[in-house]
C-alpha cells in the first residue's frame, strides 16, 4: 500500500494545487512543495521500519517476496493484468531521486511561472506521480500505462508554459515518445502472447514473464521494440532529436524534470526490462547498442560544442552523458552497471542545476543566446560561482559524482571492448571543452555593456538553498559513493545472475 499511497498523495496533491489557486495566487507552489516533501517524508518513515537496504541479501529477480516491498491486486483479470508494484534498491534510488528533484523543480518554478499557476503545479505533481509509477510498476501493462500517461502532463507543461516555439517542441516530444511507446506495446503483447501459448495463462507480471521461452529471432524482434522505446526516451543516438527542442522550449521546471528524471526512465527500462527479459537477444545486440552509445557520447559532445543557445548546449550535453549510461548498461558487468546507476543519479543533479541556472538567466535577461551574455559573473557572482561548480561537475571533475560514474563505466567497458572505451573516453575531453566554453561565454570575459545597468538580481536565499542541496548531493556522491553502490549492488547482482551475459562477453575482449 505504501507505494500506492506515494502515487495517490501526488495525484490528490495536484488537485489541491489547482483548488488552492482560489485562496491566493502564491498558494499553489507552496501546496505543491508541501505535497512533495510530505511524500518524501512518508517514504523515509516507511523505509525506516525496513531492514537496512545496504545489508539486504540479493533479491531474487523472479521472486517478489525477496524484494523490499511488493504489492499486487487484480485490475483486469480477464487478461491477467494486475496492479503490481515492487521496490528494490534501484527503484528506491530512482524514487528518491524523483522526489528530491521534484522539490527542486517546484523551487525552480517559484517565480518562473506567472500564469495559471495552479494548473502548472498540478501538472508537475502528476508527471512526478507517473514517473514514480514507472519506477515501481512490475506489471508490464501497468508499466506501459504509467510510461504513456506521464507524458500528458509533461506535454501540457511544454505546450502551455513553454517558450517561443513551444507548440512544435511539445508535439515532437509527444509523437516521438508515443510512437516508440506503441512499438513497446506491440512487444509487450507479443511477449505475453508467446507466454500464453506456452502456458495457457494470461499474465503481464514481470516475474512470470522473466523466463519466457522463445526462438532467438523472435526474441530479437521483441527486444528491439523495448530497446527502441527506451532509447528514444534515454535519448540515445540516433533517436535524440526530440530532446534539444523539448528541453529548450520547456519552462525551467519542465526542463529539470525532463532531464533529471524522465530520461532516467529510459535507462531504468533498459536495466529492468530490455536486458533481463531477453538475455540472449540482448547479448547478441550488445555491441550494436554500445556503438550507438559511443556515437551518442561523441555526437552529443560535438553538437553541444556548436550551440549558441545556453539551454540547447546543456540539452546536447545530456545526449552525451546518456550515451555513457547506454554504454554502461550494455557492457553488462557489475562495474559498468554500477557506473550507469551512478551516472543516472549524478547527471540528474548536475543537469537539473544547470537547467535551473539557464532558467534564471532567461528570467533575468529574456534571452538564452550566449553571444549576448558575457562577464555576467560581475553582476551576479553567486550565480556565477554556482554555474562554475555544476559545469565542472558535469565535465567530470574528480571528487564529484559524475566522475565516479563515468570512471566506473569506462572501467567496466574496458573489460568488454577496448576500442569503444577509447572512443567513449574522448567524450570526457570534448565534455571539458564545451562545458568550459559555456562558462567562458556567459559568465567570464568582458562584461557586456547591455547588462551593466540592467538591474540584474543575483541568486537569493531560495535559489542558493536549492543549489546547495544539489551541491551537497554531488559532493557526497563523489567522495563517498558507497551507499549508492551498496543499494544498487544486490539488485545488479541478481540481474547479472539472470543472464549469462558477462561470462560470454568477456570472451569477446580483444
Amino acid at each position, binding site marked *: 500500500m505504501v507505494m500506492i499511497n506515494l502515487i495517490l498523495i501526488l495525484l490528490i496533491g495536484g488537485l489541491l494545487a489547482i483548488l488552492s489557486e482560489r485562496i491566493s495566487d502564491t498558494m499553489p507552489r507552496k501546496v505543491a512543495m508541501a505535497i512533495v516533501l510530505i511524500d518524501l517524508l512518508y517514504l523515509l518513515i516507511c523505509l525506516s521500519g525496513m531492514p537496512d537496504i545496504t545489508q539486504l541479501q540479493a533479491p531474487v529477480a523472479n521472486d517478489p517476496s525477496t524484494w523490499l516491498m511488493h504489492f499486487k491486486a487484480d485490475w483486469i*483479470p480477464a487478461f491477467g493484468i494486475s496492479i503490481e508494484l515492487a521496490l528494490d534498491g534501484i527503484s528506491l534510488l530512482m524514487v528518491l531521486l524523483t522526489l528530491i528533484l521534484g522539490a527542486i523543480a517546484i523551487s525552480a518554478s517559484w517565480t518562473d511561472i506567472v500564469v*495559471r499557476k495552479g494548473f502548472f503545479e498540478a501538472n508537475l505533481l502528476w508527471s512526478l506521480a507517473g514517473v514514480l509509477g514507472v519506477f515501481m510498476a512490475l506489471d508490464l501493462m501497468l508499466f506501459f*500505462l504509467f510510461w504513456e500517461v506521464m507524458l500528458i502532463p509533461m506535454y501540457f507543461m511544454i505546450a502551455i508554459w513553454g517558450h517561443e516555439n513551444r507548440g512544435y517542441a*511539445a508535439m515532437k516530444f509527444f509523437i516521438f515518445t*508515443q510512437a516508440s511507446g506503441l512499438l513497446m506495446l506491440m512487444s509487450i*503483447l507479443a511477449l505475453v*502472447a508467446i507466454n500464453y501459448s506456452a502456458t495457457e495463462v494470461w499474465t503481464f507480471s514481470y516475474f512470470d514473464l522473466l523466463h519466457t521461452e522463445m526462438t532467438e529471432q523472435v526474441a530479437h524482434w521483441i527486444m528491439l521494440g523495448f530497446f527502441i522505446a527506451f532509447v528514444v526516451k534515454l535519448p540515445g543516438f540516433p533517436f535524440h532529436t526530440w530532446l534539444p527542442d523539448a528541453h529548450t522550449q520547456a519552462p525551467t521546471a519542465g526542463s529539470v524534470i525532463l532531464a533529471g528524471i524522465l530520461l532516467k526512465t529510459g535507462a531504468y527500462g533498459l536495466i529492468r526490462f530490455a536486458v533481463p527479459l531477453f538475455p540472449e537477444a540482448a547479448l547478441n545486440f550488445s555491441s550494436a547498442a554500445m556503438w550507438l552509445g559511443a556515437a551518442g557520447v561523441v555526437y552529443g559532445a560535438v553538437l553541444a560544442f556548436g550551440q549558441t543557445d545556453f539551454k540547447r548546449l546543456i540539452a546536447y550535453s545530456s545526449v552525451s552523458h546518456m550515451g555513457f549510461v547506454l554504454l554502461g548498461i550494455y557492457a553488462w558487468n557489475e562495474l559498468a552497471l554500477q557506473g550507469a546507476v551512478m551516472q543516472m543519479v549524478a547527471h540528474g543533479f548536475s543537469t537539473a542545476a544547470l537547467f535551473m541556472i539557464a532558467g534564471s538567466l532567461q528570467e533575468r535577461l529574456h534571452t538564452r543566446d550566449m553571444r549576448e551574455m558575457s562577464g555576467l559573473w560581475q553582476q551576479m557572482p553567486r550565480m556565477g560561482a554556482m554555474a562554475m561548480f555544476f559545469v565542472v561537475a558535469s565535465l567530470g571533475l574528480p571528487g564529484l559524482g559524475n566522475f565516479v560514474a563515468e570512471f566506473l563505466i569506462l572501467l567496466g567497458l574496458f573489460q568488454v571492448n577496448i576500442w569503444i572505451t577509447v572512443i567513449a573516453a574522448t567524450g570526457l575531453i570534448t565534455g571539458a571543452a564545451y562545458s568550459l566554453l559555456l562558462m567562458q561565454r556567459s559568465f567570464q570575459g568582458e562584461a557586456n555593456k547591455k547588462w551593466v545597468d540592467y538591474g540584474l538580481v543575483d541568486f537569493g536565499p531560495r535559489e542558493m538553498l536549492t543549489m546547495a542541496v544539489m551541491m551537497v548531493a554531488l559532493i557526497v556522491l563523489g567522495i563517498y559513493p558507497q551507499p549508492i553502490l551498496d543499494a544498487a549492488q544486490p539488485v545488479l547482482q541478481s540481474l547479472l545472475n539472470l543472464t549469462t551475459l558477462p561470462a560470454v562477453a568477456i570472451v569477446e575482449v580483444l
Partner: protein
Amino acid sequence: MNATMFSALAPILMLSLTAIVLMIQASIKRDQSVAWVITGVGFLLTLWSASYARDFTQPVTILLQVDHWSLFFTSLILIASLVTLVLSKDTFSSEGERKEEYYLLLVLSVLGAVVLIQSSHMVSLLLGMELMGVALYAMIAFPERGQLPLEAAVKYLVLSACASAMLLYGFALIYAATGELSYSGIGSRAAVAYAKNPMLVMAGSAMVLAGIGFKLSVAPFHMWTPDVYEGAPTPVTGFLATVSKGAVFVALTRFYIDGSLYQFSDLNTALAALAIVSMLVGNWLALRQENIKRLLAYSSIAHFGYLLVVLIALTYLDTGLVNQSITFYLTAYIVTTLAAFTVVSMVTGEDTAKQNIGAFAGLFWHRPLEASALTVAMLSLAGIPLTAGFMAKFFVITVGIQSGLWGLLAVLIVASAIAIYYYLRIIFAMTKSAESPGNSANWQEKIVALALMISILVLGAWPQPFIAYAGLL
C-alpha cells in the same frame, strides 16, 4: 409468429409505435417541444424494452436474429440516439417553422439501424440499411438555410444509391451461386458453391463488401465522408458517425461470421487491403484538415480500418475473442465519437466559421468542462492509456498478434503514430490564450458531455466489468 417472438421484437415495435405517435401528434398540434419529449420517452421505453427482450432471445422469422449481442448494440445505439436528441434541441430551435419532422426522421432512422443490427437475412439487411439511409438524407438536408447541408445530402443520396445498387447486385450473384439469402444458409452452402463456381461467389461477396464499405466509409469508398460530415448539422453528423456506421459494422460482422465468408482467403486479402488503405489514407488526409468535422471524418475512416483488422483475424481465431474485441472497439468508438461531436456541437453551434480548429483556442480557460471532455475524447481516439480507445486498440493488437497479422499491425503502428499529430493539434489549440467566445450550451448538453467523458475514462481505467460482460454476449 408466437407471443414470445413479439416480446423479442419489443424494441422494434416500440420504435414503430413512437413513430406513429409522433405522426398523430403532428396532425393534432404541431409543437416541437412536445415532439422532442415524445421522441425522448419513446427512446427510453425502447431502451427498457431492449432489456425486457433479453429473456426472449430467438430467431424471429427467417429475417431477424434477436440475441444478446444484437440487443446490446440496440441499447448502445439508442443511447447514442438519445445523445443526438439532446444535441438536436438547440440546433434546430432557430430554424424555420416546421421541425417536428426531424424527430420523426430520427426515430425512423434508428428503427432502420435496429433492424440492421438484428438482421440475419439479406432482405432485412437491405431494408434496414435503406430505412436508415433514406431518413438520414432528409436529416442531413434539414437546415433550410445554407447550401452545405443540401450539397451534403445530395452527395450522400447519389452515392448511397450507387452503393445500394452494388449491394443488390452482389446479393443477386450470391443468390445465383448458393440459392440462399439468409446468412446461415449462405454459410452452409458457400464452400460448395465456391468449389463449383468461385468467380460468382467472389464477385458477389466483393460487391457486397463494396456496398457495405461505402456505408462504413472505408477507403477507397470514403470520398463522400468529409463533405457530408462538414455539411450535415453537427448532431446529425454525430448520429451518422456513431449509429449509422456502428449498425452497419454490426451487420457486416454478422454477415461475415454467419455467412462463413472468412474462410475465403481472397476476401480476407481484399479486406486487408481495405484496412491498410483506410488506416493510412484516413490518418494521412486528416493531418492537413482545418475544419474539425472534416478532421473527425478522416479519423473515423482510419478507425474502421483498425476495426477491419479484427474481422480479418476471424480466419485464425474462434469467434469469442473476435466478438469481444468488436464489441469493445465499437463501444469505445461510439462513446468517444459522441463525446467529440457533443463538444463540437456545444462549442460551434451551427456556425461554420467556428468549426475551424483555431476557433477552439482558449477553450481550456473559458469552458473547462467542454475542453476536458474534448481532450479526453481526442486522447481516446489517439489510443492513450486510461481511455476507452486504448483498451480498444489493446484488443485489436492482441487479436492481431494472436493471428500473426504482422504486416497489418505494422501499418497500424505507423498509422497511429501519424494520428497522434492531428489529435494533439486540437488539444494544443485549446490550450492557447484567447478571448472568451461566450457560453451558449444548455445544462442537458453539459451533463451529456460530462457523462460521456466519465464513460470513456471508466471504460479505460476499469474495463474488467465491461470485458466480462462483452465476453458473455
